[in-house]
């Protein structure tokens, strides 16, 4: 057994992915492969089922706000081959949407809800897309870099009960 987890190099991973799912790879770096959001589910299923890559374990799902776009990062590990791979998906900043991978990795269930809650990325196909930590009706998604400059702004103390007092945070009620 390898003594430490090795990273599957990006180019090698991209080659395999594009062989299985054509036109899915958007960008390749040494550390990761960026795939097209529309093909994410196919890529995920391929990585999960492929016996050599064997990415059956989703370590973590993280979302990063890059100002003009969102990035969702999937860290995958093969427990049998002890190697890891990194997948990235880009989402539009105004209407961020990334297909849900819950049908492939069930462990993404709570993490996608977390990403939706704090970053505002929607995951179509998720069985239970609700806020995880914050209450329904919380204005905005706090992990976004522009959270403080939302319309109405962040007013400490006043944003606690938005449903009861929508005026307090700017007058409009964001349904999410």
């Amino acid at each position: 057994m390898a003594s430490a987890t090795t990273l599957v190099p990006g180019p090698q991973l991209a080659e395999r992915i594009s062989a299985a799912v054509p036109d899915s790879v958007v960008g390749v770096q040494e550390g990761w492969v960026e795939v097209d959001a529309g093909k994410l589910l196919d890529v995920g299923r391929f990585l999960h089922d492929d016996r050599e890559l064997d990415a059956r374990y989703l370590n973590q799902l993280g979302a990063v706000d890059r100002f003009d776009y969102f990035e969702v990062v999937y860290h995958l590990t093969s427990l049998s081959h002890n190697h890891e791979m990194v997948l990235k998906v880009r989402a539009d900043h105004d209407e961020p949407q990334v297909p849900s991978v819950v049908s492939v990795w069930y462990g993404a269930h709570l993490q996608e809800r977390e990403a939706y809650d704090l970053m505002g990325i929607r995951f179509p196909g998720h069985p239970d897309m609700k806020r995880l930590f914050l209450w329904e009706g919380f204005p905005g998604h706090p992990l976004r870099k522009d959270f403080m400059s939302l319309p109405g702004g962040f007013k400490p103390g006043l944003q606690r009960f938005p449903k009861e007092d929508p005026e307090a945070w700017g007058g409009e009620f964001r349904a999410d």
Partner: protein
Amino acid sequence: MLANWYDFRDLGNGVERLLEALRDGGASDGVIYVVAGALGAAAILALVGLTTLINIWIERRLIGRIQVRRGPNRVGPFGLLQPVADALKLIQKEALQPYNADGLVFSLAPIVIFVPAILAFAVLPWGEKMVLADLNVGVLYLLALGSTNTIIVFMAGYASNNKYALLGSMRVIAMLISYELPGVLALLGVTLFAGTMSLSGIVAFQDTHWTWLVFLQPLALLIFFIGSTAELNRTPADIAEAESEIVAGFHIEYSGMKFGLFYAVELVNAVAISAIVASLFLGGWWTFGLEQWVPGWLIFIGKAYAVYFVLIWFRGTLPRFRIDQLMAFAWKFLLPLAVVNVFMSATEVFIWREYELSAGVVLPIFAVVNVALAGALIAGWSRVMMQPFVRFPRRARLVSDIDVPLPGDAAREPAAV
């Protein structure tokens, strides 16, 4: 022949002298009856109140010792006044009543639940003459009182308008009705041997035959005792108030002294059950001639507290059964054993009475047979019951390096254990 009134080995002597004097003074039977009843009731109520206070302290201290801590030791010497402080606090607290609760039933339940708990003490023989009501159906009376608890607990749970309370009271009904059966059957063996249902008669049987019934009826003691812990809502059968599951069960919504009454009743019931076990199986006030020197009622209280200690010990050490396991335990384990016990007792009593054998010869033989049978049955039956749970070893496997038996990898499947 009346003993002297100051013969404190049996407090009944004084009362008897008093009644005798009343009768000589020309009092009617009714007056004497009332005086005797009032004296006995006052004594029992005083004792119950006192033991409740002391038992709170004893239980908390003992559980503290079991749990490697000290227990209450701040209020008064050795924390002896802690129960008083608790009671004062509970009296001060507001008695809340939840919205939409059934007010009358809600308030009635903690009061009503006290009645059977107190009544049980009436038939207990504290000494040769210290029986308030020597019913000739004493055992039946105790069993009847035990089953009234069910409806009162359900009153409390239902009236609280709380889902935890409802769940708790439903569990109580299911459990108590199941545990009634093995308990009754266990006591049947005792009454078969003693030939009477009167508690003082059973003690007298143990006196005349120079034995404790525990030697003749070990299975009955075990079954009755376990069934009693279930009726008392104590671990391992405290599913009605299961703190880690339904928080406090049927009395979750009670606060202040209403909760205090439930808490006190639990302790009173524990003492009552201990006393019943002591008088039925451990000879009551009679202890192989020791009662000539030590007051019988002290012996009796000592025995009751010894049994009570076992109850506390249970509470401090055992986890809780799940409800279906508890029912299975009653129906699959206790009930067959109880039936076997009744059968054995009936056979033995038949042999003994029919052939008019000497008690000194047959009773030791029966004792040996019954103890051996009880041990064999319990060991064998529990092994059968535990069969499904011991498929795997109780220690984890140790893997010295990452060797991942992933599902689907036929070559690397974990070795069959």
